[in-house]
Every structure is written in structure tokens, then in C-alpha cells.
């Protein structure tokens, strides 16, 4: 029996597709082929970014003062850094005892950060990711934490030379170790696939947690540095027939909008930071505001 060419071609391409899917799944974020393919996608991301760039350019052009534009940009960055610093310090003070706080202080002042632009956003129910314009050439590594001025955004899950893909904390596959700022109660915060909703599961019915509690990163798992704001509790449902509480929280970071994020290199000596990355306190002192803290 002679097989039609279209059938053999179909079987070949089907097998090839399944092979590529398996390869992608097996190597997770280390798939070299995918890295090359997504690197080729970089120009397309830039084209898509042009309307946004054009808007910014027009806005700056109408002010007609380059210095003013530069000052505004510096102030935005400064403001973002200040908010991060303030929230981290506030959270740490409430969450940890004196000894732990001292340990944290030693750590956090050696963390380095690098600003990155968001190139593309994929916000679907089953997959919530963003593409940022920093990649292997900037010493970005898999699992690197990413934040914005309001809180934790997510972690780098795929890398290419020129850019990287960050999976948001709200992605259904993500869980973030947190503690309640008020009483240092530890728990895991799960993504639901919705941008404004996360859940704490498996927390006993007697746990001391209530609406409005601030949840900060606990540092467990060495993924997210300790003390960064993650979410606020929006509802706690205590069902006497259930062993666990039904807790819903809303992430603090600007997950659906915003143009820039900050890549963090925690001080664990495991990853060399980008030469362009600056320590948080140095970025602050450049603006002569270190004394505030």
C-alpha cells in the first residue's frame, strides 16, 4: 500500500512538533533552541514597542527640554527605589525579631538591582508572563527575582541572550513563600491565573490572619529575598466544617501595567551580578537621600 505524500509529511511534522514540545518541557528554561528562537523574536518585540516609544518621544518632544525629561526619569527611578526601600524596611521591622532583622540588614544592603524594560506581556488565564529586555548578556539567571516599586513581580523562568521571560507570581504554576507582616506567620501564596487574586492554602482554621494583613516574602527557598511586599489579604473565610482557611490576597505589584521592572541579585554569592547593576543603597546615596533611612 502506497502512503500519500501528504500523510507522510503530516506524520513527520507531527512527530517533529511533539519532539520539540518534549524538548521544551524536559529542559524547561534551558532549551538552547528556544533561546535562539526567542532571540530572533527580539526585533518583533521592538516593533510592537514602537507605539509606546513614540508616545513617550512625543511627550518628551512637546516639553522641548531635554534636561527636564532627564530629571523626570531620574525622579521616577528615585521614587521607585525609595518605595522599595521603605516597604522592605517597614516590613522587616514588623516581621522579624532583632537578631533576624540584623541578619537581614546585612543582606539587603548588598543586594544589587538593575532596571529593565518590559518588551511584551502575556496575560492569559493559564499563563502569565512578561518579556524584559535583559538577558544572559546582562548576567540574568534562571530563578532571578523581579520586583517593581510596589512589590514582587515574579521570577525569571526562561533566558535568551538579549532578553528573558519572567513568570508572574499570579501564574497558576507559581507559589511564593510569604509571612504575615503583623505576626510573622509563615505560609505559601499560590497564583490562581488571575492578576488580582492569589490564595493561601493549607493554613489551619486557628491561624491568626485577617483581612488587610500585608504579606511579605519570607526568603524561604532562597528565591525571593526576605522582606519584599507581595500581597495584601482581601478576604478570610472561616468555615467551621473545613480544616483549612479559605484566604484570598491581592498582589501589590503592578502586574498588568507599568513599563519597567527591577532585576535583583541577592547577596548569596551564587550569581555574579551585571556590571551595570548597582547596590540599592548606592542608588539611593547618589541622590543624597540616604540619610532619610
Amino acid at each position, binding site marked *: 500500500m502506497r502512503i500519500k505524500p501528504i500523510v507522510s509529511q503530516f506524520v513527520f*511534522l507531527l512527530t517533529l512538533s511533539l519532539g520539540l514540545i518534549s524538548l521544551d518541557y524536559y529542559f524547561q528554561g534551558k532549551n538552547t533552541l528556544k533561546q535562539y528562537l526567542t532571540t530572533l523574536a527580539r526585533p518583533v518585540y521592538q516593533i510592537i514597542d514602537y507605539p509606546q516609544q513614540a508616545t513617550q518621544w512625543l511627550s518628551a518632544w512637546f516639553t522641548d527640554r531635554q534636561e527636564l525629561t532627564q530629571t523626570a526619569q531620574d525622579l521616577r527611578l528615585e521614587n521607585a527605589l525609595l518605595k522599595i526601600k521603605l516597604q522592605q524596611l517597614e516590613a522587616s521591622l514588623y516581621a522579624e525579631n532583632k537578631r533576624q532583622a540584623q541578619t537581614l540588614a546585612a543582606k539587603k544592603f548588598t543586594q544589587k538591582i538593575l532596571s529593565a524594560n518590559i518588551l511584551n506581556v502575556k496575560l492569559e488565564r*493559564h499563563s502569565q508572563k512578561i518579556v524584559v529586555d535583559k538577558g544572559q548578556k546582562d548576567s540574568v539567571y534562571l530563578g532571578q527575582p523581579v520586583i517593581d516599586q510596589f512589590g514582587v513581580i515574579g521570577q525569571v523562568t526562561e533566558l535568551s541572550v538579549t532578553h528573558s521571560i519572567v513568570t508572574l507570581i499570579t501564574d497558576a504554576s507559581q507559589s511564593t513563600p510569604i509571612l504575615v507582616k503583623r505576626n510573622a506567620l509563615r505560609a505559601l501564596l499560590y497564583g490562581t491565573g488571575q492578576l488580582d487574586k492569589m490564595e493561601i492554602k493549607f493554613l489551619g482554621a486557628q491561624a491568626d490572619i485577617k483581612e488587610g494583613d500585608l504579606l511579605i516574602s519570607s526568603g524561604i527557598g532562597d528565591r525571593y529575598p526576605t522582606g519584599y511586599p507581595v500581597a495584601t489579604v482581601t478576604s478570610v473565610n472561616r468555615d467551621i466544617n473545613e480544616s483549612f482557611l479559605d484566604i484570598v490576597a491581592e498582589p501589590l505589584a503592578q502586574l498588568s501595567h507599568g513599563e519597567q521592572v527591577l532585576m535583583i541579585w541577592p547577596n548569596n554569592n551564587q550569581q555574579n551580578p551585571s556590571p551595570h547593576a548597582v547596590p540599592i543603597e548606592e542608588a539611593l546615596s547618589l541622590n543624597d537621600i540616604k540619610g532619610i533611612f
Partner: protein
Amino acid sequence: MSTIYPPHYSWPIYASLSVALFIALMPIAGWVHDFMPNLVLMAIVYWAIYRPDVMGLGTAWVVGIIHDSLTISMIGQHALIYVTVVFVINSGSVKTKNYAFLEYMTWLTLFIVFDVVMSVFFNRIFQQTEFEWQVLFSILGGIIIWPWLYVLLNYFENIAAEKQQ
């Protein structure tokens, strides 16, 4: 005996696929996102029916790989879906050119459902995500958009054909 040669123009095909990919990359949120169908798939279905000489299995596979690379999907996911859809069309199972509107829509709906089911399947298997019933809205969105997309693609196809003559 006269031989019918296929038309030589192909720019409407690549232009429409580029636009569809561009839209797929645009960050769309809210209910619009829920209703937004896979326009790349719909364009592929149209061209596989009307221009099988260009939209063959190889082209569909390449478009799928590009789609996967651009939209942060698993590499091969869309390629597999598109190749399967084009195979069903090109193997003669779908004689859509001669079909009535209702049958035409039925086939397209089946392809969109297949796309949604496969996407949910891949995400469930490889990313352990739960099924969200809102994904079904995109099927409805596809049914609503299809007649308009058909008219639009047909219009550009006619323009290209006129220029060729």
C-alpha cells in the same frame, strides 16, 4: 485542454498572517481578551482552503513555530495544532469551497474548538494549570469574527488577483 495555474500572488497571505501574529502579541486584557479568538488559526484555515498551493503543511508548521517563539508558548504547540488543521483541510476531508455557509461555519468552529482543547490540554499537562471555563468565550468570539474576517481576506485576495491580471 486548458490547464488552470494557481495564482502567483502570495502577499495577502503573509500580510494577513503577520497582522494576526502582531495582534496575538498585543497585550489585551479584560473581557476582550476572553473573547479574542486565535486569529492566526483563522487566517491559516482561510488560506488553506483558498490557497492550498501556498498554505501547505510546511508553511503552517513554520507559522506555528514563529507563533510559539513570539508568544512564549511551548515550542511546537501551535505548530502541531496548525499542521493538524491544514492536514484535515488539504487531505480532502473539508470541501469547504462548495459547502453552504452553515457547514462552512461548522468546520471552522470545530477547528477553533480543537485549538482551544489542545491549548488547554498542553497547559494542563505541562504547566499543571486548572481548566478555566472562560476560555470557551474565544470559540464564540471566533464564530462572531469569522464572517468579517472572511470578507476582509476575500477583499485583499481579490485586489491581489486583479493586480496580477
